[in-house]
């Protein structure tokens, strides 16, 4: 009996969503994940003021490993946000991108960086409220979370789309992006790059979603 139920279980309307646009974004994100996997951190050089002297900062191996893990995880979350065909999954991935952005710089022992990361972390936590609320209102009014289905059912309520936009802005875009300026003082160049890449790709995807649903 149970075998019959499981065999006829439909796959559901929540499927992966790839168009020409998202494939390009996917390739871009995948490229930066591979870059984070293979590259070593660069050593920042400080010039001593008024002299010819300079010194390079060494990146400790455990800090490098932590940053690399967080950068790869952030890249994979970005890929998830790009390829998902489900509004709620998109909001979850957006929230993860926000928190992993902080994770990349969390191990850096620099007071300015930690201060900025903490206040940015508070914004990220607050931004999950409009994100999830927007997705939930779409589910309640349109009856589905699948972007394929939503594209056919006419526009979703404006308030839900605005809430998603505000939420994604909080997860790493202007005007809150200013909060990230101090964060990027952290050493470890190729991994810090993932902060910008994930924000850019998230922005490009949310524009597509808001125009589709």
């Amino acid at each position: 009996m149970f075998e019959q139920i499981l065999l006829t279980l439909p796959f559901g309307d929540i499927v992966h969503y790839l168009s020409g646009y998202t494939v390009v974004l996917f390739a871009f994100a995948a490229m930066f994940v591979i870059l984070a996997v293979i590259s070593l951190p660069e050593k920042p050089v400080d010039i001593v003021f008024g002299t010819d002297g300079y010194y390079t900062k060494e990146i400790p191996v455990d800090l490098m490993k932590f940053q690399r893990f967080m950068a790869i995880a952030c890249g994979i979350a970005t890929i998830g946000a790009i390829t998902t065909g489900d509004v709620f999954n998109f909001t979850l991935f957006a929230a993860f991108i926000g928190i992993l952005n902080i994770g990349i710089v969390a191990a850096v022992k620099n007071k300015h960086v930690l201060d900025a990361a903490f206040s940015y972390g508070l914004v990220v936590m607050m931004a999950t409220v409009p994100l999830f609320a927007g997705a939930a209102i779409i589910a309640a009014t349109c009856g589905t979370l699948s972007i394929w289905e939503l594209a056919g059912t006419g526009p979703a309520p404006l308030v839900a789309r605005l809430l998603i936009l505000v939420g994604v802005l909080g997860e790493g875009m202007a005007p809150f992006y200013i909060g990230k300026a101090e964060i990027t003082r952290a050493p470890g160049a190729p991994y810090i790059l993932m902060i910008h890449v994930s924000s850019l790709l998230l922005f490009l995807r949310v524009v597509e979603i808001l125009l589709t649903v």
Partner: protein
Amino acid sequence: MIELSLAMTQLYTAGIAVAFIAIIIAFSAVLREKDDIHKLIIIDLIEITGLVVIALIATDLAEALILPGLVVGVAEIMAVSELWLAKENLQQKRSAKKLDIEVMKTAPPIIGIMLAAYGIFLTGFSGGLIAALGLMVYFLGKNVDVPFAKIENAAGYAWALWVIAFLIFMLVPSQWFLAVMLAAVGIMLKVMAKMSLVGTMRGAE
């Protein structure tokens, strides 16, 4: 597709209004608060209001959406509170005093083994909890080296079992019973590993 009757629609609108009043009150609380740690706590409360809006869908879909929302919220509060500790230089590492009595040497292994065996017999989420309780009691005892690496290994294997079970569900649905059993053992190991780490939190590490 979720179909709502007229009464349900009115109920939903009223619920949304109440939820948004709660959200506005919560956000105004953040604006008034100046202390960092209090801000963090209030913002954790704010996240609950977001879950309230999800809960208003009031179907089993809402339940399926609240769970990941809650997990994201927990992950965020953990990460940001670790950041706060690092920022305020509160990450001190000092070893805790162990309770020096005879019974802490003999009783925990016996109770621990009994609970772990019963938990393995039960399997699933509840089995994992009981087995984890056994391990917690064991780690609380005297002269115990906590095998962190082994616990992490077990959690990794549990994750792999879980993924294999999902693949079997998707690809070979006729073998669903095997998949259920794999997932049950996987979640037991996972819960056991996670919970037993609580038993090691004595101020050390």
